């Protein structure tokens, strides 16, 4: 009876859409199975949790800087004049049932989302998965990473607590520092000098809850369609696995429960974090005012590399005839991330320029097989991570007692020296691993030959 029902559903749909042959193919779409292929899925499922929790938050959040007096249940702030934005974020945290769980889960999901994208990108880079015919998939992915950074920044800026205001002040200064158009651009975005007109909050809000999520959602769709149309890459292995044939589990029934299990695991981790591990306790920071700041302020982890860059760049403005031309925040806050993004976007074509490899590749490479790529990737990663670590120099001082000034000079040297050292060291390690493997293979071959010889001899002896 149930089979019969299913049959009639399938038939009804097929007669109206003609989707059966496609569905049949899609059900048996082959997924090569390897743990590192799941990183992109972790990002995807974090995005799902972000959208779901985000929709819930929009039902309570009031993106307005109009002033109101706080009368919620958090006593230390009682009677304080705050903005509606901060007031409603406090209300979500203290007076909406399950509100804090959802708010914290949303925040954790954002942190995990960006982390998953970054680790996914690292995997894609070091295995050469971006090579022809998958460059567009890669470019779409890199664009999503940078959109996700902006989306996260807007998200925690909306709350209007002390930290979000400090972050916005820095964002305003970076916008202001862009050569030639900076002042005009910042005044356009903020509607006037910092902290901006009330409309600025409407602009941030619609960008955070509609414009960027729709763009990211569209790019995710494009990313997945491109992946499916060219099929997944895979590591080399036993036949029939080859450049021409992909081997793995079919989407249904084999792969579907695995992927669903991953979704439920991601959701479990995010809700456990959201419930049990406090994140961004905005009531402790208090409301933002232009004249207030706090020591030890840190952004969400994914902006750590930018605060590190802003701190690391030496005091250096381009000044012509008593006029500042390029203010300092431009170097660390705008140029540095733009260079990293441009380098990531250009990489597949840059590499091709040097290797002359225009062929289609479906098999992944192991990092050791491409010593230069692996070395360059490791060096750039080291560079960015060093700058990221320096973003927490004030916390390192509290932890280890190394003075900020000393750290500054150590890191200013390290960001040049260490990537170079890593470059050559990584290359040497790759070449060594290759040589070891070659050696093992030869030994293996020699043994086999010796065995074969012994066998023929024995056979000859018998006859």
């Amino acid at each position, binding site marked *: 009876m149930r089979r019969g029902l299913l*049959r009639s559903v399938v038939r009804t749909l097929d007669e109206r859409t003609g989707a059966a042959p496609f569905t049949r193919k899609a059900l*048996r779409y*082959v997924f090569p199975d390897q743990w590192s292929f799941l990183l992109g899925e972790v990002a995807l499922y974090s995005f799902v949790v972000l959208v779901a929790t985000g929709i819930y938050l929009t039902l309570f959040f009031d993106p307005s800087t109009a002033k109101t007096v706080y009368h919620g249940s958090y006593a230390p702030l009682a009677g304080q004049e705050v903005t509606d934005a901060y007031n409603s974020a406090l209300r979500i945290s203290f007076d909406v*049932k*399950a509100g*804090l*769980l959802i708010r*914290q*889960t949303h925040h954790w999901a954002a942190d995990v989302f960006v982390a998953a994208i970054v680790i996914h990108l690292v995997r894609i880079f070091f295995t050469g998965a971006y090579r022809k*015919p998958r460059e567009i998939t890669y470019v779409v992915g890199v664009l999503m990473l940078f959109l996700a950074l902006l989306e996260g920044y807007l998200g925690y800026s909306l709350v209007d607590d002390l930290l979000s205001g*400090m972050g916005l*002040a*820095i964002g*305003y*200064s970076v916008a202001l*520092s862009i050569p030639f158009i900076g*002042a005009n*651009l910042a*005044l356009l*975005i903020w509607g006037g*000098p*910092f*902290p901006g*007109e009330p*409309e600025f909050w409407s602009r941030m809000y619609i960008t955070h809850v509609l414009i960027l999520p729709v763009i990211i959602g569209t790019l995710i769709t494009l990313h997945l369609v491109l992946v499916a149309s060219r*099929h997944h890459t895979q590591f080399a292995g036993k036949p029939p*696995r080859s450049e*021409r*044939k*992909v*081997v793995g*589990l079919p989407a249904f029934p*084999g792969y579907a429960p*695995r992927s669903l*299990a991953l979704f*439920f695991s991601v959701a479990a*981790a995010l*809700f*456990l974090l959201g*419930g049990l591990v406090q994140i961004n306790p905005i009531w402790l920071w208090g409301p933002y*005012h*232009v*004249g*207030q*700041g706090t*020591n*030890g302020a840190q952004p969400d982890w994914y902006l750590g590399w930018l*605060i590190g860059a802003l701190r690391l760049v030496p*005091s250096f*403005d381009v*000044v012509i005839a*008593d*006029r*500042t*031309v*390029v203010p*300092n*925040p431009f170097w*660390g806050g705008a140029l540095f991330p733009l260079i990293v993004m441009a380098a990531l976007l250009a990489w597949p074509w840059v590499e091709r320029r040097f290797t002359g490899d225009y062929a*289609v590749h479906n098999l992944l490479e192991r990092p050791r097989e491409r010593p230069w790529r692996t070395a360059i990737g490791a060096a750039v990663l080291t560079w960015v991570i060093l700058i990221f670590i320096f973003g927490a120099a004030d916390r390192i001082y509290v932890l280890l007692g190394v003075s900020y000034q000393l750290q500054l000079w150590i890191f200013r040297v390290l960001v040049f020296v260490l990537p170079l050292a890593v470059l050559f060291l990584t290359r040497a390690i790759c070449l060594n691993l290759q040589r070891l493997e070659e050696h093992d293979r030869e030994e293996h071959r020699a043994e086999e030959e010796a065995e074969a010889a012994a066998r023929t001899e024995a056979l000859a002896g018998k006859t």
Partner: protein
Amino acid sequence: MRALGRILRAVAFVVLFLARGLGAFLGRLRPRKRERIVPEQESDARAEWAVALLLFGATAAAVMFLLIYILDLGHSTQLLGLSLGVAFALIAAALVIASRRLVPIESNAEEYSEPVKRGEHREGEEQVLQIVSESGNRVTRRKLIGGAGAAAGAALGAALIAPAASLGPALDTASLYETPWRRGRRLVDDRERPYLASDIEAGSFYTAYPEGGDPDEIGSPLIVVRLDPASLHLPAGREDWAPEGILAYSKVCTHAGCAVALYRKPLFPEAEQRPAFVCPCHYSTFDPAAGGDVIFGPAGRNLPQLPLQIDPQGGLRAAGDFSGPVGPSFWGVRTRGPS
């Protein structure tokens, strides 16, 4: 009641009738014996029980969530997160076992789509090019049409983008130089109480705002400190800006706009550095005794100083506007004062 009973009976009859009809219809559609697509594999009773138990566990955890939510128990954020997280985790565990033990495990091979070789266009590509080129054969004045199209496109594009200028005063950057400080304006604290010169003690640091002004304007907040007048070495022309050694500077960092919220006051003048204002965002450090000079960190301009005067009642007032533009720098900003 009788009417309801009659309706129910009628509904039951119709449902039964339809079900029988559907059954007969489906019976005719019964499939012939077909070759298997998904391979037959052995069942695993223990795994089935494990999956069922895990799903029952998830049910219990989800019900716990509902109870905690409805009863609004104490520490509810933690308990809500725990119960919901556990429910998700148990379903995940059930799915992991299902994917390994309840679902046929296959290793299938599928062809990658045919790669397009460089230089040898496939038929489809050729046809795309052909369609494009053949479609243009009725047009003879290509440059004219192309130029007109480009002009229309550019003009319409500009027309559509132009309203973005309403977003803000993009062309009028003079507002970036404006501050609420004027000669004679009183310094007040965050509750609008005027500061007296005698309020300002050495070794401490005060935030001041313009009386009756918006404290959240970037040009409003000041840091006020008292130093030994003999230790001051202000730039020329500022000799009378610090009556009794009381100094006022903009509280907004010239590097990235954060509040310069830290004051470093040496406790042992011989061993420690001079007093300094420090911004907690990127640790730009300014020397209050020397007119706000940058002595450490990434800031490129001095902290703007506000000239002070003490009125006959002993109150602190501004004696003019700042020594230079307030807030973070931008293209073309004057590095020194507007005066």
